[in-house]
């Protein structure tokens, strides 16, 4: 059949015939396969060795065990609520509406950094404060801070490597000291940071600890002036003797009692980088003489257990930033944001189990 039907003749050269069909079909197949391969490559399926959010969260689970429903890190915590009020100094550094001076509602979470939800408090030396500032204009800010002066690793690759090196041996339940030593030898920045952390005076309680963001961000003010900054929440509560552990939740119990007696306050202190200060490496502390600007006061008025509180299902993603606070060249906020999203995706799909910290139990014990 070599002639076309009349209506086809009007519409173009007509169907290809003979061996040319094979060639053209092969070409179409090649186009489709190339597109599919490009998609698979972009999605990381062809490079399983590449560090992904999944692999980072897998590494946390490998060290901590499976605790469905709970955060993969900082698993044991309590919800806090209160307000933040700017003191007028913030707007010179950042145009973020949280600093404008109005009373801004805040919800947050105080937690142990350990990735197991039922550890006794005394076994987790690192504690955290995570906050969500909710200004009236909706330009929300989330930040997570730890009570240590520097972070132990320089980037997420090292974070994953450190987890692998400190993975508990199933036989002893403890990390292999040789593996830990090998990591420290290969990563002098971590060895130095751990020294700095050890040398810092330990806080007595959640209420008297200073919590630091550790990562570097950029503040931008209304004039468009930029500054590299880090921030800390510095307590108004003064240091008391660290109580001897009176039970597995003694730190939380003490916090619940303290809030029962009155509000707790912290001052948000912003530290400005000096010329030449390292902004992309949280293992390095900035010199102590750097300019520090207090921008406002956090008042914590109430605590509530995670089972009923408003913090459990929130992820304190460090990239939830208002206009006026931006990521800088520190690689952590992006890595954390990606890993927290993956952690949230997993835990939000899991049935919830009760938190080890129950406010009602402590309060009932007090009155009884």
């Amino acid at each position, binding site marked *: 059949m070599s002639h076309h039907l009349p209506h086809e003749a009007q519409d173009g050269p007509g169907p290809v015939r003979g061996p040319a069909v094979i060639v053209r079909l092969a070409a179409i197949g090649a186009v489709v396969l190339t597109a599919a391969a490009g998609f698979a490559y972009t999605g990381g399926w062809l490079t399983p060795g590449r560090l992904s959010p999944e692999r980072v969260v897998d590494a946390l689970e490998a060290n901590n065990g499976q605790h469905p429903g709970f955060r993969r890190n900082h698993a044991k915590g309590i919800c806090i609520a209160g307000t933040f009020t700017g003191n007028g100094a913030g707007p010179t550094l950042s145009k973020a509406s949280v600093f404008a001076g109005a009373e801004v509602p805040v919800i947050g979470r105080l937690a142990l950094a350990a990735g197991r939800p039922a550890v006794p408090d005394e076994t987790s030396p690192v504690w955290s404060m995570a906050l969500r500032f909710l200004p009236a204009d909706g330009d929300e800010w989330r930040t997570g801070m730890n009570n240590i002066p520097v972070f132990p690793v320089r980037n997420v690759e090292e974070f994953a490597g450190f987890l692998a090196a400190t993975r508990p041996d199933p036989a002893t339940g403890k990390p292999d000291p040789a593996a830990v030593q090998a990591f420290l030898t290969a990563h002098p920045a971590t060895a130095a940071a751990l020294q700095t952390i050890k040398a810092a005076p330990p806080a007595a309680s959640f209420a008297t600890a200073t919590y630091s963001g550790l990562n570097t961000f950029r503040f931008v003010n209304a004039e468009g002036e930029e500054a590299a900054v880090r921030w800390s929440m510095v307590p108004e509560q003064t240091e008391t003797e660290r109580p001897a552990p009176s039970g597995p939740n003694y730190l939380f119990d003490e916090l619940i009692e303290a809030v029962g007696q009155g509000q707790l306050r912290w001052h948000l202190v912003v530290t400005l980088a000096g010329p030449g200060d390292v902004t992309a490496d949280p293992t390095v502390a900035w010199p102590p003489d750097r300019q520090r600007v207090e921008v406002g006061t956090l008042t914590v008025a109430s605590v509530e257990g995670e089972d009923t509180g408003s913090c459990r299902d929130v992820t304190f993603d460090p990239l939830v930033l208002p206009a006026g606070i931006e990521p800088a060249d520190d*690689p952590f906020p992006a890595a954390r944001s990606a890993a927290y999203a993956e952690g949230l995706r997993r835990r939000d799909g899991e049935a919830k189990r009760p938190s080890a910290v129950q406010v009602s139990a402590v309060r009932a014990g007090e009155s009884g």
Partner: protein
Amino acid sequence: MNARFTGMARLLHWLMAVLILTMLFIGVGMVSTVSARYQLLVGIHRPLGIAILVLAFIRLAWRLGHPPPPLPADLPAVQQALAKLSHYLLYFLMFALPLVGWGMLSAQDYPVQLWPGVHLPPILPASPMLYAVLRSAHGLLAYLFFATILAHLAAALMHGLVRRDRVFASMAP
């Protein structure tokens, strides 16, 4: 008889084809990286996804007012039906993907930021289980979208290179 799609339909088709393919690659790329690219890609993903939703409304309205040219009469009925079905599916996904994306961030109680200082309101109540379901759905629908586009691409090339009928020309830019 005009055998081509209107200029507006062709413009929307090719503009959205580029944007949607870009979005699919950005999506799978961002969820597989812990590098600084994550923040850049997520920052593009949200506003571009919402832009696709807006364009989808415009496109659907235009399509309802401007019927497409008929498929060649000699195209087998099965292929006609498949073409129709796949176009319905593509339209459905153009709406479903961005709406599920917006909805899942709402369910996560996460700000739906388009760019610094500009947010969309939540469209669903905060609920962890709902977030988990929508987050899975967003991924699965995106893979379905990509697979459908590949089939659509193969079919378009069949028309243009093998059958050599007027179908490809009807949408050619």
